[in-house]
């Protein structure tokens, strides 16, 4: 893929086909755990790292292991193992490197089973991206996820001061908030040609 195409892919993954707001992936961590901006940033950073790694590794898995063996139907099992393994490794690394980082402990186990990361790998597979395109897509999708997580966390911090009806407090109002954000982001559609 040309540099132009890669740039369009990256920008598209962050804004137009945003992982959370357009493709509706990775919602459980964003809605359930992303309450403070620092936590959301940390979670986004880990998801970006894992998504990039899984995209690259997933491509290699498909190209060099599954296709030669004719085991394409094992793709999901293989990817799930990859996501689980890499997610676990990232969590352990984060705990080792920054033990007192915000959000360590609560949000991070979610990454290991994050449907966002597996979703990115599946999209890469379905679209038939090459190695570079898959990695760029994984990285940008992670950035898009981080963007939404941080924005939503910031909005939720503001929301703590607002008079929300009891029935809507917590998850329901967060979902409605995300819906309004999704409406705003849908304004980006058509920005990337092709």
């Amino acid at each position: 893929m040309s540099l132009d195409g890669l740039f369009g892919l990256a920008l598209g993954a962050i804004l137009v086909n945003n992982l959370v707001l357009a493709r509706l992936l990775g919602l459980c961590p964003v809605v359930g755990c992303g309450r403070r901006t620092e936590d959301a940033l940390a979670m986004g950073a880990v998801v970006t790292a894992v998504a990039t790694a899984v995209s690259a590794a997933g491509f290699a898995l498909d190209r060099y292991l599954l296709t030669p063996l004719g085991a394409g139907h094992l793709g999901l099992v293989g990817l799930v193992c990859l996501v689980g393994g890499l997610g676990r490794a990232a969590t352990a690394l984060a705990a080792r490197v920054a033990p007192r980082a915000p959000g360590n402990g609560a949000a991070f186990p979610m990454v290991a089973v994050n449907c966002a990361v597996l979703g990115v790998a599946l999209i890469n597979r379905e679209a038939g991206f090459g190695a570079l395109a898959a990695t760029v897509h994984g990285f940008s999708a992670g950035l898009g996820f981080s963007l939404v997580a941080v924005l939503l966390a910031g909005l939720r911090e503001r929301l703590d001061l607002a008079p929300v009806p009891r029935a809507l407090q917590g998850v329901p109002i967060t979902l409605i908030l995300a819906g309004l954000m999704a409406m705003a982001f849908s304004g980006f559609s058509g920005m990337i040609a092709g």
Partner: protein
Amino acid sequence: MKPSRWASADFLREMPALGPAVALCPALAVTTSVRSALALGAVTAVALVGSDLLARPARCLLPARALFAVRLVAAAALVTLMEIGLARRAPELRASLGIYLPLAAVNCLVLTRGAASSVVEGVGLGAGLTLALGLVALAREFVGSGAVWGRVILGGGYNPALIALAAPGAFLVLGLAAGLYRLLVPAGRGRSKP
């Protein structure tokens, strides 16, 4: 847990996606039609109970973390089998579910089952999720297209609110549904995250 207990109390009190903030990705992504929603709910329920049953023999042998990995792989394998079956029997349904069908394997619900989880509880959760997905899909399909299960109910005079079928509408409908659920159903065993 006695069958009578789950049938009356917890089944409706802790409907996934509406009560606890789990299984949000499918609740938003595939609820554009009742048919896909119920199909994915059924697949997730089978993966939930099946992975539990398959991991049971390993319960006494492996520590919790290893058990988690076993459950993950078991769920992925089951979902792959169901995916192949669905592609053979109902290819257009399989196509409409897209990448969200394989994602049922890493559904938060499937994997946050403790070491002491019971099969009956799993069946209850699966049934609750399917019902929740069905209800959300009913609202979205009805408002967004005036039809339910492909059968037109509101005739030509109805101008459908297409937003209900798009991503922003998904968030809004689920947020309002979760709020309504909290209003109507008394709180569960305190598992719901605020």
